[in-house]
């Protein structure tokens, strides 16, 4: 039998190796070529850390630990097997689970230590449970909205921000009281309960289009709460993992808010989804030019360079596999086809890339907004499928537009613009898109999947 001290050293070394592997894991994610190695490194690190922890001498009972590990794995497998379109809600759900774990551990730690909790410890413990519990309910709400079991429409009322910030403020004040008087254990349920309510209230005013930002923000909160737990438990490994997760969520939130032209403070205070009252009405009768699948196929066949701009509408219509057929048909004719991906296309950061990769479209054809925008003036056809606001030139020119200043894909600079759309109804933000009335624009009305299928048939010469 190895001595206790020696075992503790072995455990610390497994944690040290796990930490290095976690950092390498994220480093290898920088390119698709090494990314799978990154997952493997993460798995090995995780395994080492968990096995190391199980060696811990202080553990006196293993039965429930093993039952819980097996149960968690049983729940985890189906959550790893969801459809790619459902990845955003799965991600939100996993933020909720992570936050649940952190909140429960924090709660138990408080009751085990009270009333003897030093001020700093009480401070980080409060941060752990406040962030944890608001992330828990907030993520559940976000998952519900993404899964469409809850209304996606933002629900707003007068004084909403005041109520929400007030709730959070009360929780912080109570936490302050506990820091000074940790023996007032009867106050502790409040710093769990109030943030649980706040988490729900925070997501109520948020609409579907803002989900990429919200998911990233919840990601960041989940990471920070885990880092706080690391402080409470004196675990460097957990502090580092939490800091990495928090940094990742923070970077993604900033990316998303930039891509939607929202200030970061606007995002932080949950004040998004507000300006939905855009000037809708107005002149409905403006003329648009429309085309049929065979006309569209003719124009595409004559092009040298085509850029396809997919939006979430493409995924809703399940059109990505038809889009792949279109890509094949055009490529076979020697036409250069690329995809222009806006950062907020899809329901979470990078979601559109995953959906297109699933349809077997090579990733080197998927270009970010900044990479593709310079190409549009030399592009013969820009084909927009299920995207709207991210192509709206009013964001560049119209100071009165609610989306003014939002970076967009400059599709209007292409020689011909084709837009597949069900009808002339406005997009998510309810904003009129002047792109549709340009002389160079052809509207292709219909379901994305059927319409693209129609174009593919025409390109294939009528057979198939």
């Amino acid at each position: 039998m190895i001595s206790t001290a020696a075992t503790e050293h072995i455990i610390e070394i497994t944690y040290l190796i796990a930490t290095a592997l976690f950092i390498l894991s994220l480093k290898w994610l920088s390119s698709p070529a090494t990314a799978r190695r990154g997952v493997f490194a993460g798995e090995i690190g995780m395994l080492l850390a968990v096995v190391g922890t199980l060696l811990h001498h202080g553990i006196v009972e293993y039965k429930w630990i093993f039952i819980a590990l097996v149960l968690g794995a049983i729940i985890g497998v189906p959550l790893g097997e969801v459809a790619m379109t459902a990845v955003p809600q799965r991600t939100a759900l996993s933020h909720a689970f992570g936050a649940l774990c952190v909140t429960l551990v924090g709660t138990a730690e408080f009751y085990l230590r009270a009333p003897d909790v030093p001020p700093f410890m009480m401070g980080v413990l409060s941060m752990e449970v406040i962030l944890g519990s608001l992330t828990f309910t907030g993520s559940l709400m976000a998952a519900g909205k993404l899964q469409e079991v809850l209304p996606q429409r933002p629900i707003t009322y007068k004084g909403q921000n005041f109520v929400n910030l007030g709730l959070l403020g009360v929780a912080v004040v109570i936490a302050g009281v506990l820091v000074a008087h940790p023996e007032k254990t009867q106050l502790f349920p409040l710093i769990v309960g109030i943030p649980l309510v706040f988490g729900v209230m925070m997501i109520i005013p948020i609409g579907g289009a803002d989900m990429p930002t919200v998911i990233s923000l919840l990601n960041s909160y989940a990471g920070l709460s885990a880092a706080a737990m690391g402080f409470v438990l004196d675990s460097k490994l957990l502090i580092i993992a939490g800091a990495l997760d928090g940094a990742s969520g923070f970077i993604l939130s900033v990316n998303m808010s930039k891509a939607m032209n929202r200030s970061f403070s606007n995002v932080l205070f949950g004040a998004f989804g507000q300006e939905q009252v855009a000037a809708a009405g107005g002149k409905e009768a403006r003329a648009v030019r429309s085309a049929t699948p065979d006309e569209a196929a003719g124009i595409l066949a004559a092009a040298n360079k085509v850029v396809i701009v997919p939006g979430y509408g493409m995924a809703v219509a399940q059109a990505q596999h038809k889009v792949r057929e279109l890509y094949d048909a055009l490529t076979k004719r020697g036409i250069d086809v690329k995809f222009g991906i806006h950062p907020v296309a899809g329901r979470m950061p990078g979601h559109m890339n995953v959906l297109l990769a699933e349809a077997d479209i090579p990733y080197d054809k998927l270009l970010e907004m900044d990479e593709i925008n310079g190409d549009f003036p030399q592009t013969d056809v820009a084909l927009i499928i299920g995207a709207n606001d991210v192509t709206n030139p009013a964001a560049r020119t119209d100071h009165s537009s609610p989306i003014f200043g939002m970076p967009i894909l400059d599709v209007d600079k292409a020689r011909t613009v084709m837009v597949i759309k069900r009808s002339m109804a406005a997009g998510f933000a309810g904003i009129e898109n002047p792109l549709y009335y340009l002389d160079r624009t052809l509207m292709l009305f219909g379901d994305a999947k059927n319409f693209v299928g129609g174009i593919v048939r025409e390109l294939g010469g009528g057979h198939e």
Partner: protein
Amino acid sequence: MKLDLLTSLYVFMLAAFIGFEVIRRVSPLLHTPLMSLTNALDAIAVVGAIILAGEFHSHGALLAKILGTIAIVAATSNIVGGFIITDRMLRMFKASGPKKP
């Protein structure tokens, strides 16, 4: 093994800087797998839950056991699900170039 507070803060700060530098380099192409991977790594919180559920406590033992056990279930589902889905997504990313047979 008592870690002093200032050391913890140093560790946090350095990890945050490393996080920013490493994650800034992740291609936007892979931002969804990035989120599912960091989520799985974050579930390392399971080590805290394991110790909570397994250690001897002179008081509050039942509470620690119940909350710790639920916390292990939640974190483990993130570890397993997070790694599976990240790998599934990354397997789909293929370069064009020479057509495979």
